[in-house]
């Protein structure tokens, strides 16, 4: 049997902007969930490595800390805060949806086949999560640049 390859676009499929336009904010949330997840994992590995410098003494600790005490470092940390808040908010939305809340009742699929699960409640949650991420980034910058 010939192997199906149509749905295997990989990263190209992820980042194709026409798909976001075609499938709406849910598609953007799907993409951001993956990108923020990967970004947070990379940050976490870096954070574990950076904090291990505490074992090398005060001089090495202070030097490694200097990297995050610059304007670029603060902006990077603000981005991490934004990624963290979006990933958390969207993750909670997905957990609630998987429990069956807010996804609508099952109906007979009639043309134009609008899925019940893609509704205004879900869209509002995604916009609210994006807003919360922006607010958290702003608060983080206010603390770091104080």
């Amino acid at each position: 049997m010939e192997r199906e390859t149509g749905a295997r676009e990989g990263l190209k499929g992820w980042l194709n902007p026409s798909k976001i336009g075609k499938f709406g904010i849910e598609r953007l949330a799907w993409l951001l969930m993956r990108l923020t997840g990967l970004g947070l994992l990379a940050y976490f590995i870096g954070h574990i490595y950076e904090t291990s410098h505490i074992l090398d003494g005060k001089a090495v600790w202070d030097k490694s800390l200097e990297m995050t005490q610059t304007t670029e470092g603060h902006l990077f940390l603000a981005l991490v805060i934004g990624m963290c808040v979006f990933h958390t908010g969207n993750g909670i939305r997905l957990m609630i949806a998987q429990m069956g809340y807010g996804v609508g009742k099952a109906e007979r699929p009639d043309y134009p086949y609008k899925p019940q699960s893609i509704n205004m409640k879900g869209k509002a949650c995604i916009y609210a999560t994006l807003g919360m991420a922006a607010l958290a980034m702003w608060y983080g910058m206010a603390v770091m640049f104080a």
Partner: protein
Amino acid sequence: MMVLRESIIMKIHYGTALGALFLTVIHIMMRLTQDFHESLEYENVIANYESVGYAILLELLLILISVHGFNGLRVILLEMNQGPTYEKLVTIGCLAGMAALIGYGSRTIIMTNMGML
């Protein structure tokens, strides 16, 4: 190799997410108990690690985020491609990465907590 059902793995994924969220909030609040920059000074960070309660919190946080993060990576990689060998390699690779990160992070926590500087 012991194989867990995906439904069980996803429950672990959600459980670790909620646990990590709770502990991360405490971890961040600790930075805000004093001035942010001051809280990151060497002496203050050492004092944090030397507190047994906080060291346990850090260890739990390390385990929860590592499990959640590497399982998330596994899910993303399995979404992109499938096949028995590939899936086995991805699973073993993610488990190895998770174990290595937990081991490396635990070393920092245990050595600092015990004053082995």
